[in-house]
């Protein structure tokens, strides 16, 4: 076991939590990510394999789904698989092995920072952040969008719980934008 200590995307030892009004903003670090892209001609097999892995059908465009492992759609025949980091630090190599050549798998865990927003009135926050129709979200939506010039994934777990994935290097800027808008909206 190595002796290196991880830091959070915001650069601290422990994840940060901020609350304003009805909304709680949490930095989430316990997420392993791996992208899964079907090999050419193996699209059906890749979708089937991913479905087996997730325990539900591979998500449709702009959707998120799963049980222990979840995945959201990233692009044509491409998904991002999410899992708890504690138990799945080796998510990407594990998936790559399991995929048996029907998909290319790439580790993405640390390419992203993740902030979860929970509480009421999240649509009021996100409608000031990105051009996604958040008021129509009912849970299960996953869109790539832009928040203050940062390409982000917006995942609606439930209308009271959203996750935002942004570029890890810009965690500070993204966190700042989220906080500013929480204060503006509530």
């Amino acid at each position, binding site marked *: 076991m190595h002796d290196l200590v991880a830091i959070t995307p915001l650069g601290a030892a422990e994840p940060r939590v901020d609350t304003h009004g009805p909304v709680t903003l949490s930095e989430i670090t316990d997420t392993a990510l791996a992208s899964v892209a079907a090999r050419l001609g193996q699209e059906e097999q890749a979708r089937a394999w991913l479905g087996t892995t997730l325990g539900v059908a591979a998500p449709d*465009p*702009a959707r998120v789904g799963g049980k222990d492992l979840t995945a959201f*759609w*990233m*692009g*044509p025949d*491409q998904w991002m698989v999410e899992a708890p980091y504690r138990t799945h630090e080796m998510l990407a190599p594990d998936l790559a092995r399991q995929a048996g050549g029907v998909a290319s798998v790439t580790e993405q865990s640390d390419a992203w920072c993740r902030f979860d927003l929970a509480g009421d009135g999240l649509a009021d926050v996100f409608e000031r952040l990105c*051009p996604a129709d958040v008021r129509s979200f009912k849970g299960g939506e996953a*869109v*790539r*969008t*832009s928040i203050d010039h940062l*390409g982000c994934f917006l995942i609606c777990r439930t209308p009271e719980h959203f996750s935002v994935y942004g570029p890890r290097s810009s965690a500070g800027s993204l966190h700042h934008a989220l906080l500013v808008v929480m204060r503006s909206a509530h």
Partner: protein
Amino acid sequence: MMIDHPTLGPRDAAEFVYMGCASLINRPDWQAEDALQQFIDYGYQRDNPSGAHRELWFHEGGDRSWLVVTRDTVTHAITQVELARDVARREGRSK
């Protein structure tokens, strides 16, 4: 401007990066007799129509698909949006 993405539905054009005429899909054969002349035309000459224009947009802020969008350059009305990959295959490109 909104682009009706074939997979994702209407998305703000601000999420896309524009490249130019969809004729850029038809890259000449490097071994053709007049390859240099063909590449010069491919690289530099444009129809630049006022009216319907087939053009390439990249969904950089989205699903990373290249799209072929048919858009009127006078009214900006969009009449067709396709995945560029499908168009390219249809136009005979392979590998």
